[in-house]
């Protein structure tokens, strides 16, 4: 087990020693600041309408948590899938293309273990990036609105609208960011799976982004209403249920069982593809 962690440390070292990894973090912070400035300038029109329409005080619920939730939602929607696909799409394909894989596999390590290390690294990165996003959004929210107030949570995809005071709201915000982190590992899994083929890293990234986008469009098109359970973004959206005043745990567990099942299947298929490959330039 210690050996496994030593080897995983090596993978993490490679990931976090690259400037590109930090560009991802930097891009998110820049995007969050832009969204925050837009909120400051134009206000939170639709959110304000929803709060006032529910008979609550906008001044009370226009808090750091509500702002953070909005900033995080937009940031994940605009850049989340892109950066997760970029990292996971690179993780096997780029190493194969550059020739690092030949250096690694000249060692007495199995392809399964090597892929497992890489998979844990890219899904771990996805989880970590979302947490980073959640808490930098929160910090920016604090800068704008200060500590305290209520929390207005709205996730239309799972029909959740809820009002919380500061303490419980903060707890729900933290839990939902953990759940969102888990959901987003599926984006990494898709890119990782494609990355196991003998393709260019960019092809794996574009392939994963395309799949997620098509899945998302189909889910929102109305034509797939009867087949929504086949669409992975539907199950990924279960993170939003954590924000409901009464959490529907069976639905949450079912959604995450599907997410983990999809992740496991993608890893297994990726491994099967990689295992069957001859590694030679």
């Amino acid at each position, binding site marked *: 087990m210690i050996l496994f962690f030593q080897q995983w440390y090596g993978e993490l*070292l490679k990931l976090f020693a690259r400037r590109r990894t930090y560009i991802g973090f930097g891009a998110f912070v820049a995007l969050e600041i832009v969204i925050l400035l837009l909120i400051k300038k134009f206000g939170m029109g639709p959110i304000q309408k929803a709060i006032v329409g529910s008979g609550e005080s906008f001044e009370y619920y226009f808090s750091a948590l509500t702002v953070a939730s909005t900033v995080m939602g937009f940031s994940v929607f605009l850049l989340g899938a892109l950066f997760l696909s970029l990292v996971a799409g690179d993780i096997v394909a780029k190493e194969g293309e550059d020739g690092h894989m030949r*250096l690694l596999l000249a*060692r007495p390590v199995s392809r399964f273990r090597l892929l497992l290390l890489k998979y844990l690294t890219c899904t771990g990165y996805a989880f970590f990036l979302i947490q980073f996003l959640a808490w930098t959004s929160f910090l920016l929210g604090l800068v704008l609105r200060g500590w305290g107030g209520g929390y207005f949570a709205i996730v239309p995809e799972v029909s959740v609208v809820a009002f919380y005071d500061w303490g419980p709201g903060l707890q729900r915000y933290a839990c939902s960011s953990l759940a969102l982190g888990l959901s987003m590992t599926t984006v990494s899994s898709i890119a990782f799976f494609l990355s196991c083929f003998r393709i260019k890293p960019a092809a794996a990234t574009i392939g994963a982004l395309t799949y997620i986008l098509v899945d998302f469009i189909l889910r929102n098109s109305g034509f797939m209403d009867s087949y929504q359970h086949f669409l992975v973004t539907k199950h990924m959206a279960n993170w939003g249920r954590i924000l409901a005043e009464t959490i529907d745990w069976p639905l949450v567990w079912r959604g995450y069982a599907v997410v983990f099942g999809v992740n496991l299947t993608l890893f297994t298929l990726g491994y099967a593809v990689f295992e069957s490959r*001859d590694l030679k330039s």
Partner: protein
Amino acid sequence: MALLEVRHLTKRWPTGRMALDDVSFEVQQGEILGLLGHNGAGKSTIMGITLGMVRPDTGEVRIGGRSVQKDRGGALQQIGAIYEAAVFYDYLSGWQNLRVLCSLSGWWDEAEVKRVVQMVNLSRAIHQKTATYSHGMRQRLALAQALLPQPKILLLDEPTDGLDPEGIREFRELILHLRQHQGMTIMLNSHLLGEIEQMCDRCVIIKDGKKVFAGPVPSQEKTRRIFQLETSDIGLAREVLDRAGATMDKHGIVEVPLNMEPHDLVAALVHGNVQVSAWQPHRRTLEELYMGLSSKS
């Protein structure tokens, strides 16, 4: 004792091209074996199969008695390799690269790593990013990673490719030092005849996926006796030599059988009325052997 056994390897690429056709040979403990052939002959495929990165259609490679195809982890514990061009992580230092690679072998001994780094003369640059390394430094780092942790056999795939003459000489001296002082067994893959000739005890020549020669490197031969005959009547000389049981090629190169003395052959030539203008020992070069095999096939 054979430390590495290559047994009946056959490999056909999905394109239909035959990469290897029933290739077998052994590498004995303590020897340096050269794998020689033109580009695309199948040398790197043999290396790839030996490292478990390429799957053979039939046959297997055994390292220290362990089959790479059945017990890759166990077999590769005994091996260090530079397979194709060693590409390091440019954004990591040499030391970090070694750490990442050694962790995959489940091993890290700082003192031993320092010793090997010193041996390959990289001590001063080991904490710099490998992006700043010259090609020669990268090759030395590649050798360092192959030597960690203390393999029984080294596989070197075109290790001097792209090096300048000084770098080649330095690398060659390092390899010979390893054999001399550590008794290292080495399989060296190259298309450079001079490199094989200067470093190897034996060589295996691969041509279009087939083994066409396996034996001592000609310059290292101790048992064969080869002479250069100069005569104006090469046809008559060949007849006389044939009768005597010796062989001669069209350039007058005569191989003296082991049961015969060279001066007996000269006497036979003189008695057969052959005008012998010169008879001198001839050292056959690897180039002659290689070109001879190429023209035959």
